[in-house]
Structure formats: C-alpha cells, structure tokens
C-alpha cells in the first residue's frame, strides 16, 4: 500500500497537525469513530512527548498491510535526550516532567502494536500500529 505522510513536530500546534493528518490518511481504511479517536489520542501523546522532551522531531504516518489486515503505522522519531530507563517510562504515572506520566503506557494501550527504541543521547523512536478490526 502506498501513502506516507511526514509531519515535522516543532511546536505544540504541530501536535494538532499530526492528529489531523492521521485522520485524513485513515479515511482510506475502515476505522470506526472510536478507533479513530484512539489513534488520534495516541498520536497526540507521542507528538507531545517530542515537543516536551526533544523540542523537535517528526511523525511519519504510513498505511500498512499484513496479509489481509490493513492499518496505519505511526513512527514518532526524535534526536532528543532519549530515555535512560524505558521500563520505568512505560509505567503509569512515571514522568520526568510535570506531566501525568500516562503518555507512553497509555499510548500502548490505545494502539494494537507498540514498540519503543531509545537510549540516552540517541533520541527516541516509537513505532505503533492500529489495525482495522
């Protein structure tokens, strides 16, 4: 499948843009309103993480298929400070800022697949997918 969108994330207004672009791209798929909301909420969280911790980065939105399944893959990438302890960052309520600490573990619950790669000084890449049901 084709269709890829890259959304640069540099300010909080870009969080809205990423959400909007994902909704547009997802029109090609059969997502329920509920699933679209879950997707948009997860994108909002990871995009906000980029603004808060890395200041800038990008979100790549791509239509993907696996067998008969179709979905949308979200890759949030930044070259920010990275995460020292990913296990702790995936715990509810853990935050190094004044946030609620729900962004990463919450996004994992909102999406079907979720994968994070990060190391101090090496930035962070979150790859997550929502499949049609």
């Amino acid at each position, binding site marked *: 499948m084709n269709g890829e969108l890259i959304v640069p994330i540099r300010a*909080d*207004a870009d969080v809205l843009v990423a959400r909007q672009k994902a909704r547009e791209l997802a029109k090609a798929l059969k997502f329920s309103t509920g699933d679209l909301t*879950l997707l948009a909420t997860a994108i909002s969280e990871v995009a906000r993480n980029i603004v808060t911790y890395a200041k800038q980065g990008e979100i790549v939105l791509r239509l993907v298929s696996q067998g008969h399944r179709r979905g949308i893959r979200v890759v949030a990438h930044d070259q920010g400070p990275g995460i020292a302890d990913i296990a702790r960052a995936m715990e509810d309520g853990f935050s190094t800022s004044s946030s609620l600490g729900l962004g990463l*573990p919450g996004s994992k*619950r909102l999406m079907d697949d979720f994968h994070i790669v990060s190391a101090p000084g090496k930035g962070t890449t979150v790859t997550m997918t929502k499949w049609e049901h």
Partner: protein
Amino acid sequence: MRASILKQGNVLIASVQGSMSDADLAQMRDELVGDVRRYRSTGVIVDVTMLDVMDSFAARTLRGIAQIIKLLGATAIIVGIQPEVAFAMVQLGLTLEGIHTALDLEEGLVVLKALGTEAHER
C-alpha cells in the same frame, strides 16, 4: 483557535473548540480566572463537545482549571465529553477524578442549580 466565553447570570460558559493548541487552552484558563473574579461568578461550565481528542495534557489543563475555579469559590463542571473520547480517556488512564462532569450544557446547568450555584441575575 480560541475558546469563546459567555456570561449567563452567575455562570460562565466556555466552549472549547475542536482544534485548540496548548497556548489556546492556557489562555482560556487565564480568561476564565479573570472573568470569575470580574463577574463574581459562582459557576463555570466548560463545554468540550467539540473536542475530538482529550489527551493527557488537555485533561491536566482542564483539571487545573476546575481546581483553580474551586479555590476561587466557584464550581466548575466539564460537560459534553463525547463517548468515544471518554473511552479513549479511560484507556489512556485519565480519570478527571474529583471533577464535576455532566452530559451536556443543559444538564450542566441543572447540576449547577442542584449545587446551589444557579444562573440567576444579581
């Protein structure tokens, strides 16, 4: 996009737009706080019917607004959370605990009345 704030008797009604940035939300908070003092409002309704996503930042901001309003002596109610938004909030782990909520604007006014902060002119 900025929120619109209406004054109806003792009650302020703030309508959150679908595409509000963090700065817009913060500005709405500041305007509400100023208006509660200026108009001596006893109730504030924040209508989020148009909001398509409630992420953790937006929830934290709304909770903060409700707490500030309460400290000023007024009552805040969040109304109009859409069912799919509520579902996503629960998945995310957002609870808005301790914050008054109501189905819609009409119900919000009923709740304010029940809480003794009805919208009458004075």
